[in-house]
Structure formats: C-alpha cells, structure tokens
C-alpha cells in the first residue's frame, strides 16, 4: 500500500505538470536596439510626468511638451491575442521614453490619439533597474510600442534599449490557457510513475503463490 501511495503521489504530480506551466505569454522583445537615422521624427513629445501607467489606469494623458521640436522615434507592433493585460519593460539610458498605443501611433494627428500609457520617465530605477508600465489593450488587436528620444534637435542615436512586453488574461497575471504548454520534463514525470506501476504489476503477477 505504501508503494502505491508513493506512486500515486508521483502520478498526481506528473499529471498536474502535464496540465501546463502558468508562465507569462511573451508578446514581444527586442534587446540592445538603437534608434537610427532611418527612424522618423515626430514634433513634440510626451511629458515625463513621473507616473507610470498601470492596469487600474492611474496615469492620465501626460500632455505634450516642446511642440515645435523634432524627436526621433521607432515603433514596434504585435497582436496581443487573448492576453490584453500587457506589461512592458524598458531598459535604456536616460534619454528614451517608452509609450504604448492602441492599434496605431499617429504623431501627425496627435500624440494623444490612441494613447494607452507610458513609462512616465526615462532611464532606470537606481541606474540599473528597467522601468515598466502596464496597459490594457483590446483583445486580439494590434498594440504599438513607441520608443521616443527626448533630447530633441538631431536626436540622440546609438543609445541602446531593451524592450519587452508580456501579456496576461487578467491582473493576476494568469496566462492564456491556449498557450500553456507542457514542459519537456513533464512528460518524463508523467511516464515514470506509469512505468513503475506497470513494473510493479508485472512483479506481482510473476510472484509464485504461497501456501495458505
């Protein structure tokens, strides 16, 4: 009985692992990227108001500063699928500001058009920790991330930045069920107890009957 209990425990663990691992759904990432001379300019930029957007909508549109100054920017677009609660991290020097827009970024119309949120600041916490902010997109829609230079004039080129975006189905950071995949180790754990059970049953069958 003891052996079966242990095996059953292993089987339960294996099955639960087979159900999948609750990890973030990685929507987008770019590492050590830079703005280049190929990137376009926008007039004016978002004000760095020190407030990072979050899923409860803490940040109101921060306003536009230096409306006559040209700033380089680059956009990244991806579909959020059924993970509309998006958490965006940005690591960069002190001159780049990250923001997010629903579907498209239209600087020629207004920096407020489609704005969902931004990091509130440039740089990094304590000089080393990436900034982050959170936005809620429309499910199965395109989210546009914008990296904007903040020094103006010719724009600072070559400053490295790393940008990541992870999606969840809710504010508890649960990931979309469709994207839960078994970990490779899970299959081994699943099969191991079954194999042991089979071996145990074979052993019992092979054991000679004892006299009463």
């Amino acid at each position: 009985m003891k052996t079966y209990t242990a095996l059953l425990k292993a089987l339960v663990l294996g099955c639960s692992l087979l159900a999948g691992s609750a990890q973030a759904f990685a929507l987008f990432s770019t590492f050590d990227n830079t703005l280049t001379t190929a990137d376009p300019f926008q007039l004016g930029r978002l004000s760095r108001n020190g407030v990072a957007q979050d899923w409860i909508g803490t940040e109101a549109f921060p306003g536009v500063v230096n409306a006559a100054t040209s700033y380089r920017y680059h956009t990244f677009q991806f579909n959020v699928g059924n993970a509309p609660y998006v958490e965006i991290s940005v690591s960069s020097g002190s001159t780049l500001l990250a923001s997010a827009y629903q579907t498209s970024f239209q600087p020629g119309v207004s920096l407020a058009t489609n704005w969902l949120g931004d990091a509130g600041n440039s740089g990094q916490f304590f000089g080393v920790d990436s900034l982050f902010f959170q936005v809620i997109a429309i499910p199965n829609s395109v989210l546009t991330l914008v990296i904007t230079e903040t020094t103006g004039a010719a724009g600072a080129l070559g400053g490295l930045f790393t940008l990541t975006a992870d999606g969840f189905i809710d504010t508890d950071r649960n990931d979309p069920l469709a994207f839960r995949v078994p970990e490779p180790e899970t299959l081994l754990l699943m099969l191991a107890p079954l194999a042991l059970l089979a071996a145990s049953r074979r052993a019992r069958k092979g054991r000679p009957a004892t006299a009463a």
Partner: protein
Amino acid sequence: MNKRFSRSAAAAALAMLVSTGVWADDLSPDVVSQMMSISSVKAGFTAAQKKMDSNLAYGILAASNDGRVAAFSNAITPLATTDVNGTPTTPTATSDSTVNFVAVEIFGDVDGIESAVNAAGGKVTYKSANWGAVNASLPVASINAVASSPSVTRMASNPGASTNLGSASTQGTISHDANKTFNLLGVNGSGVKVGVLSDSATAARIATLKTSGDLKATATALPGQNGTGSDEGTAMMEIIQDMAPGADLIFATAFTSAASFADNILALAAAGCKVIVDDISYFNEGVFQDGPIARAVNQVTASGVIYFSSAANSGSLTRGTSGTFEGDFKDGGPVTLSPPVSLNEGGTGRLHSFSPTAAVQNFDALTVSTSRVSLKWSDPLGASSNDYDLYVLNAAGTAILGFSAAGQSGTQDPFEFASTNASGGFPVGSRVVVVLYSGVPRALHVDTIRGALSIATSGSTYGHNAAASTVTMAATYWNSAKTGTKAFTGFPNINEPFSSDGPRKIFYTPTGAEITPGNVLFATNGGTTLQKPDFAAADGVTTRTPGFLPFFGTSAAAPHAAGIAALIRSARPDYTAEQVKTAMRMTALDSMGAGVDRDSGYGIVMAYAAVQYALTH
C-alpha cells in the same frame, strides 16, 4: 618654572601652527581643541549624565545654554522637542515645560521608572516588563532628575528606525513561479496565518484593499497595533496575499519602540502565526549580540515559527555600494597635534586608523552623503566598559559636523550615534573618525546608514535582521535579467545595488557571555560567523498601496519569501520551520557568487520548486 615655560612654549607652538594653517596630522588644531573640550565635558559627567546617550547628555546642556559646550555647540544636534503627547514643537527656553518634552527610552525597573516619569510631569507611552523598557515623553528640565532615579539603568533619545523600503502587485508571482503553485498544485497558503510587522497598516487602507480584492476578508491587525505612517505594512501584506492567496494575514506595528516591536513579535506568534515577517531596522540594535528584538525572534522560532526579515538597504562590497566598515581597533596615535603638542596632558584617547595597510589614516571619508552614522563595538549590551567616541568632520578635517561621545562605564550599550539636521546631511567627503577614549581594542562596526565609505568592508546586515534565528532576505529586481515578466533563472538575476550584504559576526550569546572567552576580535577569529543573507527574492514590484508603486527594497523581498513559506506550510502542515527552510534551500536558484555567498546566500527562493520538494520529502 619649567612647567610654566613648557606650557607657554606649547601654546606658542600651537598659535604658530594655527596661524600658518599647517599641520601634519589628519585633524586640524581647531578640531583637536574641540575634541578635547568634548572630552573635558564628558570627564565631568554626573552619575545621571553617564546613564544618558550622547544626544541627550549634550543636547540638554546645549538647550540650557551651558557654557561648557559653547566651543562645540554647532556640532550638537538639537533635541527634537515635542509636547507631552509627542506632537513636535519648536524648542523654547527650558523653563517652558508645556512644549519642551523629549521622547526617551528608559531601561531598568519599569515600575520605578513609571513612578519617576509621572512624578516629573512626564507621560509613559509604552511599558514593557518583558524587556525592562519604558518609552516616555519627559520635560527637558526633568530629564536629569529622572535619570538620577535608582530605577533607571540607562536612558536614550528614541533611536529611530527605518523600514527597508527603496521607494515602489506583485510581479513576484511570476518571478518566483508562485502562480504555478496555486494554479497547478492547488496549494495557495490556506490554513496558514502570517504575521506582518512594519511601520503601519491603517484600518482604512486594509478596508480599501479588502474591497478591491487585494487582501482577503480575514486580513486584520492586532487590536490597537495598526500604527501610523505610510501603510508600508499593507504593501507587504499585498505581496504575501498575491504569493499565497489563501493565507490569513495579521499586522502589528513595529514602529512604536524596539520593546513594543519585540512584544508584538511574541503577540503575533501567540495569535497563531506560523510565519512572521518584518522589514524594520532599529539603528541601535546590537551588531555583535542579540538585542531584545532578536531575542523575541529566538523565542518564537523556538516555538515553531519561521521568521523572515529584510537584510536592509545599506549596500554591499560586491556592488561597490558599501557604507559599512568592520575591523578591529587599530591604534593610529593619540588625539594630539603632530608634531606632538598636547593641550591636555591627560590626552583624549587614541585614534583608530582605518587604513588596511601599515600606513595610518585616521578617518574614513564618505563617498555618498548621509545624515546618520553609528559606531558599535564588541562589548556586551548593557555592560560596555570600553569607551569609544564617534566624530564626523568636514572634508578638510577642520571642523566637527557632528559627534557622539557618551560615556561607557559598565552599564551602557556599546553604541554611539552621530546625526545632523543639516540639509543634505553629512556631505560627500566628510570624515568619520573613531576615538578610543579609554579601554582596550575591540572589534568595530561603523555604519553610515545608506551612505558609502571610501574604505569599506562587507558585513552590512545586522541586528535581528541578521540574527541566527531569522531568515534574512536580500533583494533582486523582478526584471533583473531584463527579459520581462518571466521566472527567475539564477545568475542573470543579480542583487539590487543597495541590498545589504553579510556575513554577520557575533561575539556574544544573547545573555552577554563571550562565545569565545577572551577573544572578541576579528583578527583572532573570535566569536562565530553567521551566513547572511539566507536567500534573495523580488523587489520593485507593483502593489495597490499609494507610495509603493513600485515597491523597492529588501522590505519587498522579505514578504515574497514569507508568502512562499506560507505555501510550503499549507502543503505540509506537519513541517517544522527547519524543514520549511530546507525546502527553500534545496530548491533555491544560485545567484551572485557560485554556491553560498555573502550577497544572496543560498540564492533565489522559488515557490513551485520548494512546494514540490516539500510534497515529495
């Protein structure tokens, strides 16, 4: 005749040196003169003044315009006066007893102390028979009289405490794989009570978080122990609740006083908490011996509680941010001028040389400013008989910016604390100077409390935060690998630059016995060395508590670990605290130095792996 001539010659030589501005020592003549004045005043302390800490003893003299302190009054931090209820006031003449009260902590016979306080027109704000401590508001004019009471062993101005907050919901559920634990294993901390101690968790904030669903309906505080402050306690509670959604949380303030903190640790254990966590450091806690708070931790852990605390945010040698100096007193010469011309033939003590080589350097310069510097040494708590003093000079060494020069004559703590109210604190370049006023060499611990030093060592974490019975937590940013909201992987997840390092040397047992009799120095490997911190966990996370968006610091790391412990205890209610810790240790992700190290201990605690280990062992 000859004696008069030698004194005249000495005075003339001093005058010449001062006029030319040339001196060969690290201290200018003006500074030496001030230090000698301070020592002269100390030498004349009454029995009552000898019971006081430096801030009280010299602060009272300054408040009463005593002529003896005129030469260095600019370096005395004014007493923080209040009314009888503790509301801050602007100090006036000491005869105005309606506004000139000071908050003090008094040790000795608590009933006798209470009588003395009441007789002096003061007000007792907290009394702990457990720890022989009374907190009170006393009229400035009556402090000497109360200190004279035979019931009083010693008296100190409230030392202050800090939370271990950096500034800033928690991504930790992903970073530590906690989501997997309750989503896949069905383990969520249910059945486990977790006690939380911090500055405050106001009833209003707890109610708001319950309404928003960030705290369970059972979240509460011990009666009358919500505290007042920034609600950092609720931010910690949020983290624990996120990590262990089924756990029941109870809060108690740790900010009333050290004695109250210790009592609340006991009270939370009595209320059924099997996991307790705090994020508080008291500046006057013992470094080389367990004080009252650590002894309270010892009591509850002996009864089965697993206790977590933040390591503190005072930097590390590895990250180049250390504001700590630890080492044995090294004689750097007398407190005189060079060439030796002493204004006080008795001398004022011996300077400590901070230099790690044979060269002499009688100061340690600040490389990051701070408003507080503490000095502790390896004498037993409440029984220090070696008298050390602490000075902070300007960068040129020509003026004293702050000092602490209480007397230690056998009943005091080995503790000096220099602070300043100046804007910007003690600036970069300020010189920290340690003097052995009388006695023998001891192991020293200088702490610039979130400053940094040019000559620095490891060993930042101290007090109950680093006690043997405490699980000490370092901090690593949830996105330290810069890969987004993902689980930690280990070596890519380095500690925060401010996370305090270990190890922690202890020379005395909690009762004050030398662990290695006759050997209380680093150089001779006295005492015992504790591996600290124990683990690392996430900080920089999201909470719903205003002011903690995000929540940085080892204050945020400790509740993540407490939440993981709650998950383990929920999965294995039969587990002892040591078994819980083993599960964490066996599954921690190695980070910082390979193997166990002074920065992250055994590494980053991981919920899912730890619970799996517990379920199979």
